[in-house]
């Protein structure tokens, strides 16, 4: 063969790979020596693997110019064993990489180091990832691909976010911000509330509920199970039962179409380390009270650990907002689009009530239902509020 300058060069004879599993062989006999004339097809040397012995035949005719390994050497497949060319030629120096224990440690390490470095210097990234990185001055070599194989756009974005968070943190230390631009959850809430108030004609309906029976049930549950069941769970369970008869009050109003559902998924508004979040409990109508209570607890803990996922907050059909733990007697909540209603619960206080012309003291709770007046009218909500109040005051109705 000729090299770049057109000079005829010697041919290398390599150790062939004689089977899928062959990786090396030991040379145990040279049949020709340096200076011998060799014809194409002549046997040059004999070698041994762990499976068989075989010979290397010459692919070329010419003079055997140089032998690169000695008897007893163990060499990897494809090693150049010798050179064949024209008499008087100087074949290129070939370093034979010896396999196994023959190779001195420092050589092995140097070889290994070179290999990884070469491989590592080649960055495998998608065309899009490369573009994004270039545009944002991100060094691809520092990025570890999430799928272990190739850097994608998402990997670059994650690296970018991490870098900019660090930058932002250090800059706030240096100079205080004059005005805060809301970010994250606050911004989303701002947008959602504005959208809701601007597009949904809210109508509000208030009623007062005697919570006597539910307080008793709470006490019984506590005595029997040791679990302090919250009012949110009790109200959610009752609410779900009643809503089964009012599909438009646990529905979505989207693109001028009302989408109703078979089961009842209730979003439970809660204040957490992630801010105001509304995780959803599915099919409350067939979920037991303690399961609801447990799920609320789990969601709350998740949110406080900032682990609440988008999945946890999907498919809510109506929202339940309980501010009874504060000194809030009643409030009117803003509907969470695309839902059509939201129920706001105030605190329970002992009040004087008139019953059969006598004054009694009873634990009274006020609740306000905000509803989308495009979808449902007052009479229907009136009917719903009546049934809900009834069922909260007379829990036996749940059994029917």
């Amino acid at each position, binding site marked *: 063969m000729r090299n770049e300058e057109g000079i005829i060069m010697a041919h290398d004879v390599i150790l062939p790979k004689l089977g899928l599993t062959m990786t090396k062989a030991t040379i145990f006999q040279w049949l020709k020596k340096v200076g011998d004339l060799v014809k194409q097809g002549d046997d040059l040397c004999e070698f041994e693997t762990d499976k068989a012995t075989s010979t290397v035949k010459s692919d070329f005719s010419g003079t055997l110019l140089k032998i690169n390994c000695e008897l007893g050497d163990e060499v990897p497949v494809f090693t150049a064993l010798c050179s064949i060319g024209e008499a008087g030629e100087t074949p290129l120096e070939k370093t034979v990489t010896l396999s196994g224990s023959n190779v001195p440690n420092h050589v092995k390490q140097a070889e290994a180091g070179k290999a990884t470095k070469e491989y590592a210097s080649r960055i495998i990234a*998608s*065309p*899009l*990832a490369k*573009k*994004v990185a270039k*545009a944002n001055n991100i060094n691809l070599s520092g990025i570890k691909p999430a*799928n272990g194989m190739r850097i*994608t*756009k998402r990997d670059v974005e994650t690296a970018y976010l991490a870098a900019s968070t660090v930058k932002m943190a250090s800059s706030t230390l240096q100079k205080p911000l004059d005005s805060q631009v809301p970010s994250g959850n606050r911004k989303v809430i701002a947008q959602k509330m504005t959208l809701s108030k601007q597009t949904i004609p809210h109508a509000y309906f208030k009623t007062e509920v005697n919570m006597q029976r539910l307080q008793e049930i709470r006490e019984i549950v506590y005595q029997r199970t040791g679990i302090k069941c919250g009012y949110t769970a009790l109200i959610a369970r009752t609410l779900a039962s009643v809503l089964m008869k009012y599909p438009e009050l646990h529905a979505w109003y989207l693109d001028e179409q009302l989408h109703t*559902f*078979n*089961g009842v*998924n209730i979003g439970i508004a809660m204040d957490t380390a992630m801010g105001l979040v509304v995780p959803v409990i*599915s*099919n409350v109508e*067939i979920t037991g009270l303690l399961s609801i209570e447990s799920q609320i607890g789990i969601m709350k803990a998740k949110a406080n650990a900032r682990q609440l996922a988008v*999945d946890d907050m999907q*498919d809510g059909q109506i929202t339940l907002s309980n501010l009874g733990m504060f000194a809030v007697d009643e409030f009117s909540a803003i509907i969470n689009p695309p839902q059509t209603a939201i129920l706001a619960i105030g605190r329970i206080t002992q009040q004087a009530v008139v019953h059969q012309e006598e004054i009694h003291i009873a634990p009274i709770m006020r609740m306000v239902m905000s509803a989308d007046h495009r979808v449902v009218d007052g009479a229907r909500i009136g009917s719903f509020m009546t049934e809900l109040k009834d069922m909260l005051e007379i829990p036996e109705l749940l059994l029917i």
Partner: protein
Amino acid sequence: MFDIAVLGGGPGGYVAAIRAAQLGAKVALVEQDDLGGTCLNRGCIPMKSYLHNGREYMEFLRYAKENGFSLQGNAMPPQSIFQIKNKTVDALRRSVTSLLKQRGIDVFHAKGELVSSQMLRLEDGTKIQAKDILLAVGSRVSEPPFRTAGRSCYWTSDDMFLQFEVPENIVIIGGGVIGVEMAQHFYHLGTKVSIIEYADRLLPMMDHDVSTGICEYLEGLGIAIKCGCAVQSIQQDMVVYQDNQCHKKEEAFKRVMICTGRVSNADGLPLDQLGIKHNRYFIKVDDQMHTSVEHIYAIGDANGRSMQAHSASAQGITAVENILGVGKPLDDRAVPQCVYTDLEVGCCGMTEEQARKQYPNCKTSIFPMQSNGKALVDGQVRGFVKIIADNKYQEILGMHIVAAKAAELIHTGVVAIMGEITADLLADCIFAHPTLSEAIGEASRGFNDGAIHHHK
């Protein structure tokens, strides 16, 4: 004790079983009906067989007529389309059966009950225990959301493959993928077809340009299309509906077909009892196909993520790889969707509407098939290639093709999106001439200096 027990032997289940066996797992597959599920027996395969052979039949008749051949007796009666379909389905079913056998997968032909997160039980009491369970129970035709005169008064897709009839006319309720393909099939047979769709356009889940393209095509065939109509009831020989002006209308029919959707078969499983979270019986899963219960996975139509056979297969592979410790989350950002009308549809990625929500400044580029040489040669010049890309990096967000062979063409888009190949790089690819695929290269050019063979 098996490593994995798969409940359901459709494209999700049997593919998952084979992948698991490849990875060395001991697999049990339980199927109560025929292997191959809906896809092989009463869905994709038989339908595409009808469409292909029905088209040949129609072309054959047209050629004979144009060239003055008279047909003696029943030269190619429509019944042959049914018989060819049966042979094809039988052959494929045998092939699936043999694939499972070769891999040493234990197949149980029985109804399987989900007893716990690590046990199935068959009708005869046989218990199948496994370290992990894969639910692949699929879906079925849903009950119509309106009154009917009884099940026997209407057809669903299931009825299409048990018998073969050429009605004088047919009303198809539901203009989604299935309804539209059924319309094409009956057109081939010479039936007068009309479609009634609830949404304001056919194929409402697809890009709006696709809807327009297919609607124009079908109307060009003489198929009557009524959108924005809500069917109220089906009587013995009449559909009562409310049109898009809210006027009550009636349409008489010889046959009516209902294609209004499918529901999960997971409602036959004790989901609530076992604590498996679901949304109206579509089982909730994460990107590794885990359900909310340890050791239980759910794939395919039963989780409702994407009601397509190839999604079920991909999810099956993902689930099994994750169970056996070699998996990664499912990357389903470019799942292709195809419609096999003679003027096909092939789409992947986001519709323009979806893209604008995340990328308000995204751009679209449309190249019409009438400017493509091969389309002209083949005699089908309708359709287009539409690409949606973000304006900053030219990231390809979606590709939508309406054209002959679009179902094959779309895979360039699938590879481009999965490979994160930007539109400018796609434009650099050299497409063979003359091919329909050139339209894809031309559409990509639209984001820079414009297509060569088309000027806006």
